[in-house]
Each structure stands twice: as C-alpha cells, then as structure tokens.
C-alpha cells in the first residue's frame, strides 16, 4: 500500500507541475498590469517602472517562471504585491476558515445524505424514497448563492428572537476574539518561520482551537456562525451523496449474500449496515471525494454572501487586483489539497474492499 501511495504521488507530480505552469502563465494573460491595478491614479510611468523592477516583473517570463519554481521548492510562495505580506502567512490566515467551512459542510452532507439514501433504498417507492429523490433533484438544481441568501433571510430575520436565530455574517460576534493556543500557553513562537505558520494555521481553526483551549463561548459562537454557510455549501453535495447512496444500496440489496444474511436470521440492522452498506461504500466514498471541487468553488460564493474572509474571497479579490503571487500560491495550495484528498480516496478503496490489490 505504501508503494502504491508513493507511485500515486509520483504520478501526481506532473499534474501539479502543470497546475503551477498553468496558473503562472494564465495570471500573466490577465489584461492590465499589477502596477495600474494597485496604484491607480498614482501609476505614472516612472513609478510603474520602479514598481515593476522591484517585483522582478521586468525579467523575461521564463526567467520569472524559473525563479518562481525555485522559490516554491524552498517553501517560499512569494509576497503579495498588494498586501505586502508573505503568501504562506496569508494561507495560514485564510485557509483555516475555508477548511472549517468545507469540512463542516461535507459533514452535514454526509450525516444527512447517507442515512437518507439508505432509508430511501430500504423503502423503495415509499413516501420517504420519493421525498428523498425529489429533494435531491431540487438540491442539485439550486444556486448556492440563492440558497445562502434565503437561509440568511429565514434564520436571521424570520426566526429572529427564537432559539433558532442564527447570525448571517462573519466568523464571530463582534467583541469576541479567539485566542490562539500558542499565545494562551505562551509558546515562544516565531510566526514568520515555517513552524510558526503551521501553528498559526491550526490556531486559526477556531473550532479546533477553542476545543483545545476550552474556550467554550468562542466554540459555540463560531459554530453558530458556521451553520448557515455550511448548510448552503453542503446542500448540493448532500443531494448528490443521498442519490449515490440510494443507487449503490439498491444494487447491493438484491444480492444473494444479503438474502443469505437475512435467511440465517441476522437482525435487519446488521444486514443493512454490515452486509449491504459496507459493500455500497465504494461508490459513495468516490462521490464524496469528488465533492471537494464543488466545495472549493462554492466557497467563493458562500464567503461572498456570508461576509467571510476565506480563500475564496482572497482569490477573487486577488484576480481583480492582479495580485499574481496570491493567485499562484493559493491555487497551488488548493490543487495540492485536491490531489491529496483524491489520493486518500484511492487508498481507502483497498481498506474498504480488501479484494482490491494495488
């Protein structure tokens, strides 16, 4: 299995190189130069010349690409042109929000979608089944941005004053701050160093950090802020997962070994979960892995609606201001995450179905 994983990583390397090359050259095709995009009125030819020389943008493009590749290999993702801060630091700041949002959304999608799919398959053509299928059809047809706004309207306005009221924007109620664990525990951390940025990443996972340090008020507040965006983001994956679970279960429930399991008197729950669902998991896991793309793309929309400063937002802003290093660095980080998750999905096949040999 280790050999297989290594092989897969090696195969993924050209794709990652392609991602690097595509982002590098594509962002340079964006019309308008970073100088005028950021300095605006002040961008006189003289100012721009020194600006561009300072950022190394006057060198031949292949040289720029070579320099960039070397930097990446050394873990240096460059410095944001507009914010004048290292991209790795920005990643450590912004990525946690999107990771938390995405994981929470996927969790909701799985916790609701899988049982719905199982029940629908067990009671085929029943009201539950019809409802699940109609619901999943509607779910995949909804624009995320519309669903998000409607959820905000429902939970922040219509349900105002009830216990179900939920905040429609931001990560925390203003006035509350999440203290990262390394500050609370007075660790001597250099936030500019590589390790410091890793710690910063985990510290910025508000839910994780507040659990670790027992800041319960922060935990519940952050959770409440996350519910609406995660619901909006999780609905499409939920619908897709429910549908896939249902059809995979239907396929398996008709098999002989399920009939045998029933015939030998096993409890229905054991038959369903151990015999049927276990064998239906493979396509379900595959489809869950594929949802990552939907989640990252949807994050731009969700973060826009719920006013969250995550990866989607910073990328969108960076494209508008031609902030090349941010676009390249974040895209690369996302693509690496993508490749890793797909790798995990592939490796999990062998664990889910021991018949599969690598």
């Amino acid at each position: 299995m280790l050999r297989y994983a290594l092989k897969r990583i090696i195969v993924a390397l050209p794709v990652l190189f392609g991602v690097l090359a595509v982002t590098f050259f594509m962002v340079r095709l964006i019309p308008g130069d970073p100088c005028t995009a950021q300095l605006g009125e002040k961008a006189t030819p003289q100012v721009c010349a020194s600006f561009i020389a300072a950022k190394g943008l006057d060198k031949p493009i292949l040289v720029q690409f070579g320099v960039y590749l070397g930097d990446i290999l050394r873990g240096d993702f460059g410095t944001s042109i507009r914010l004048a801060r290292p991209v790795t630091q920005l990643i450590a700041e912004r990525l946690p929000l999107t990771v938390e949002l995405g994981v929470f959304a996927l969790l909701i999608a799985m916790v609701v979608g899988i049982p719905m799919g199982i029940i629908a398959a067990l009671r085929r053509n029943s009201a539950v089944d019809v409802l699940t299928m109609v619901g999943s059809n509607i779910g995949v047809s909804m624009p995320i941005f519309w669903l998000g706004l409607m959820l905000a309207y429902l939970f922040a306005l219509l349900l105002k004053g009830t216990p179900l009221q939920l905040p429609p924007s931001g990560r925390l109620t203003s006035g509350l701050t999440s203290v990262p664990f390394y500050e609370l525990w007075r660790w001597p951390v250099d936030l500019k160093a590589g390790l410091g940025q890793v710690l910063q990443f985990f510290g910025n996972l508000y839910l994780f950090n507040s659990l670790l340090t027992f800041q319960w008020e922060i935990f519940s507040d952050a959770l409440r802020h996350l519910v609406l965006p995660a619901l909006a983001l999780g609905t499409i994956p939920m619908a897709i997962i429910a549908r896939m679970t249902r059809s995979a279960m239907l396929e398996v429930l008709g098999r002989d070994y399920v009939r045998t399991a029933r015939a030998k008197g096993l409890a229905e729950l054991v038959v369903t979960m151990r015999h049927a669902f276990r064998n239906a998991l493979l396509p379900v896991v595959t489809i869950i892995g594929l949802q990552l793309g939907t989640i990252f793309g949807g994050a731009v929309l969700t973060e826009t609606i719920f006013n969250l400063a995550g990866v989607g937002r910073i990328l969108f802003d960076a494209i508008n201001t031609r902030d090349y290093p941010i676009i390249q660095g974040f895209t690369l980080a996302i693509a690496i995450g993508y490749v890793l998750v797909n790798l995990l999905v592939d490796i999990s096949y062998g664990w889910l179905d021991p018949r599969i040999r690598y």
Partner: protein
Amino acid sequence: MTTSTAEPMRLTTSVPSSEGPWRRAGHQFLRQRSALIGLVVIGLLAFTALFAPLLAPNDPIGVLLGKEAGIVKRSGPCVHLFGCPADQPQHIMGVDGNFRDLFSRIIYGARLSLLTGFVTVSISLVLGVLLGAVAGYLGGWLDNLIMRLLDVLLAFPFLLLAIAIVSILGPGLLNAMLGIAIVSVPAYARVIRASVLTVREEDYVLAARAIGVPPVSILFGHIMPNAVSPLIVQATLGIGTAILDVAALSFLGLGAQPPTPEWGSMLSAERNQVFTAPHLVFLPGLAIMLTVLGFNLIGDGLRDALDPRLKR
C-alpha cells in the same frame, strides 16, 4: 440484475421487436413521470422565451419612475385581484431597485437563460468532441498529451478556474459562457474518448480502414454514432449545470452586466436588500432553480431511456 425500475409501469414494458432503438428510447423516456415534468417545465420556459414581448407587461429595462403614478421602489408583489389597493400600480412580482417591473425582467431572463445553456454546452461539445475523438482515435503521445492537459484542468476547482478565465477575457455574458464552456471540456472529451476506445478495434472499423475509408469518415461515420447517446445525456445535464454556473459568474459580477435582465445578475444587484425586499432575491433564484431542475429531470430521463445498462 435487479428487476428494479423507478416506476412500476416500466416493468410491464413489452417492446415490439420492429421498433428501432430511437423509437424505443423515446417510449422509455415518455414513460417516466419525472422526465415528463422536466419536459413540461422546459416547454413552458421555451414558450415564455419565445413570446416574451407578448407576455411581459413592461419593458424589461425601462425605468417606470415618473411614467407610472404611485410606483414605489422595491415594493412587493401587487395583484389587484388579490386585494392590492387599486390606487397602486399592478406589478405581480413587485418592483426592483431601479423602478423596473420584476415580472417583465424575469420573463425576458428566460431568453438569456436558455441562450447561455445552449451556447455554453455547444462550445464545450465541439471542443470536447474534437479533443476526445483525436485523443482516442490516434492514441499514442498525442492522446497522452491531451489527456494530461485535461487532467490539469480538472485539478482546479471548477468555478475558480472559470473565474480566472473570465478575468483574462474580461467580464461579460459571452465571456462567462466561454469560461464555463472551457472548464467543462474535460467531461465531454472523456466521454467521447471512452466511446472511441471501446469501438476502435471492432471488426467493422478495421474493415472500413482496410477498404481505405479516410480516417475522418471512419471517425464520424463509424465511430461517433456509438458515442451519441452518452453525449446526449451529458449535454442535457450539462445545460442545467451551465445555466447554474453562468448565473454564479453573473452573481459575482463577471457575467451579464446591468441592466441586462439576467437572473443571476438581477439577484446579485439586490442581494443586500434580502432582508427588506426578499422577493427581489427569491423570485430570480426560483426561476434559475426551476430551469435547472427541468433540464436535470430531462437528462436523468434520457439516461435511463438511452442506456439500458444503467436502469435503476
């Protein structure tokens, strides 16, 4: 093989052997309730788009301020029949932030929505078919090169890549369609390539090659017909996705620009008013959802009808 079909009706299907495959598929399709619902929704949409000038009470981009007495900015739906005071002008879906009749805008939006769906899918179909057919038929290093390039495209989150492409091309409805089309190419190319690979070594293809049929004729005359049904399914489902994604780009300000009556940008323009004038957000979004739902239902129905292996 489970004896399962979603509708019990199909179990009794006895197909006369004289029927051709397309007729049979047509019958299968029409036997599905959900597919029929989809057909009705899209039929209504097409009707609305076609007769928009007759159906819309107002000019979709005409500002009514000063032209109509008593018009109120962002006022809710007002139907005289349902108890709306007679001194208020009737706007059955309300008035938007620029004193325009929302109903008329939504009706004209049907045109743009259908247009974006079909144009986007057509572009990706052409590109996808070309790339997939060449890769599958010629094979070798060219196949490898094309498929690896498409893999790179797939390594990006769909919408983010589309955003990047549109920012290169510049915002606008046509560029948004192009962006979504380019990002969707890998899906089509893969379908085509897979079909080409399965029949490339069949006897009838080898025979055609042996008697000297030119490669292009082999490709389009002998190989492609095998790929038509998965393509039809992919394209129909793709229309729904394309409409959804172009609307998302418009929502982000990268697609249709105001005052174009495009549903995504209409919704975007009023999104900060969701708490005060929810109808301006709710109704355009509902229109998008119904349209996408219609195409998805048709696509699912076509898949069940065209692919006998996929019967569920």
